[in-house]
């Protein structure tokens, strides 16, 4: 698509919506360019495997966080993102938050899932080690997120902390607006059982994370 051929009426409408969301933090021309960039992106990708073009349709959290990237996030905007995302967290009906840490470790190691090159029938990984240090044995860990070594041991093995860990994995945006961490439960990346297993990796006293 040539940039000059874009539908400016559509962009103007999108821009107006964005302006309402973002307020006065960024300039109007910024909004127009962002809307144009989104239009160009939608014409620059093709569906492949399990990844369809709807993956480029941003939800409000993605839209607002994109708009504020590189700028300070105003307190009221952050608060609204966190409140909206907090409402999405579905806690297990059986009330049990701790699964099997051994499965949790496998999920934390597994990087495949949701890429167009991945088998959609295979279980999706959480890829926690890509960004976090967890057990002391695994030396190949990333540093985009904080170290989670001794997560339960340092915080205490309480109901409140188990609930926090479950919620954080389910939807990280509920606790830190525009966090880099994926919303594993809300976006359907991990199942309820998988999240329980990851919570066990963090919160079970027997887990290698807490040794």
């Amino acid at each position, binding site marked *: 698509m040539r940039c000059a051929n874009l539908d400016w009426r559509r962009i103007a409408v999108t821009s107006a919506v964005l302006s309402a969301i973002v307020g006065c933090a960024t300039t109007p021309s910024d909004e127009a360019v962002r809307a144009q*960039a989104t239009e160009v992106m939608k014409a620059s990708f093709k*569906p492949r495997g399990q*990844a369809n073009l709807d993956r480029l349709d941003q939800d409000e959290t993605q839209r607002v966080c994109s708009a504020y*990237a590189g700028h300070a996030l105003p307190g009221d905007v952050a608060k609204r993102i966190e409140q909206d995302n907090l409402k999405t967290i579905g806690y297990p009906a059986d009330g049990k938050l701790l699964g099997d840490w051994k499965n949790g470790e496998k999920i934390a190691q597994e990087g495949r899932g949701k890429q167009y090159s991945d088998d959609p029938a295979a279980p999706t990984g959480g890829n926690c*080690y890509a960004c976090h240090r967890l057990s002391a044995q695994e030396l*190949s860990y990333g540093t985009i997120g904080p170290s989670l070594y001794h997560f339960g041991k340092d915080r205490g093995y309480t109901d409140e902390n188990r609930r926090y860990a479950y919620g954080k994995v389910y939807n990280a945006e509920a606790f830190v607006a525009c966090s880099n961490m*994926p*919303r594993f439960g809300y976006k359907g990346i991990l199942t309820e059982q998988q999240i329980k297993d990851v919570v066990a990796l963090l919160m079970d006293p027997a887990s290698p994370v807490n040794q």
Partner: protein
Amino acid sequence: MLAEVDSREPAFEERENARHEFLIRAMNAATTASSAACLHVRHRARRLRPHRHCASLLASAFAAVASLALAQGSTVDEIAKYRDALAEGNPAELWEARGEALWKQPRGPKQVSFERCDLGLGAGVVHGAYAQLPRYFPDADRVQDLESRLVWCMVTQQGLNAADAVKTPFGDGSARRSELEALTAYVVAQSRGAKMNVPLDTPRIREMYALGEKMFYFRGGTHDFSCATCHSEEGKRIRLQDLPNLSTTAGAQKAYTTWPAYRVSQGELRTFEWRLNDCFRQQRFPELVYGSDTAIALTTYLAHNANGAEVQAPSIKR
């Protein structure tokens, strides 16, 4: 570089094999036991292309260096040393040689060589051309990066079918090797040592730069990832892989000027469009279309931010 030769000529094959043996020996000097096995494989399979086993062995050597380096606190120094040791024998030279032959060969229904292709500095001028791309081309009425410009020349000058030209830009496994990767390697090599110089001197390239900047921060997909998720902070890594901070001048300069690269783990030369394409795959986005405006806008954003830094590509990466 090689003189004009037909790649099908037996003498060319022989010379290339000898050159490749030399390259492999140079790599062996840096990789001890694993590459001795690699050399053995090379002697058995006299092929122009680096053998898959070599690639995986070298990848293991990289991993070994990385593990060692972790114990020492950082992977950077050790990998840099390893890269220096390999630089003398970068297999990217094979792609450059193949690209040079393709550049000079009359091709397509019109039997025209790339020597009529204008990369911005005049028809057939390759020296220093890559360091000044992307740019706005009035004949195409479009901002183009090197790869989309090559495709434009293939289609408009050589008469190749547009869909065929971009069917497998990154090759097709062992079945088909990419001509675009070879051509890109050749053209980029003619800018080695030249300083990046991509001015925002036309409205269209200014527009592309501005779009690229917004795209860099666009969060989407199942995982809410943008380019910035991994590439906007200093000193971060995924697993053990160090991540360049592309939001700073120094970070963009260092990263952009080292692509294309021979990827040891894949046994392939990979271009900057491949880099973008595979980043988006890992972002869980759909597939980035080769030569699309998103590819060109992001390339423009990074190339302009890399201004002033010397092109060091084709390089060699893990």
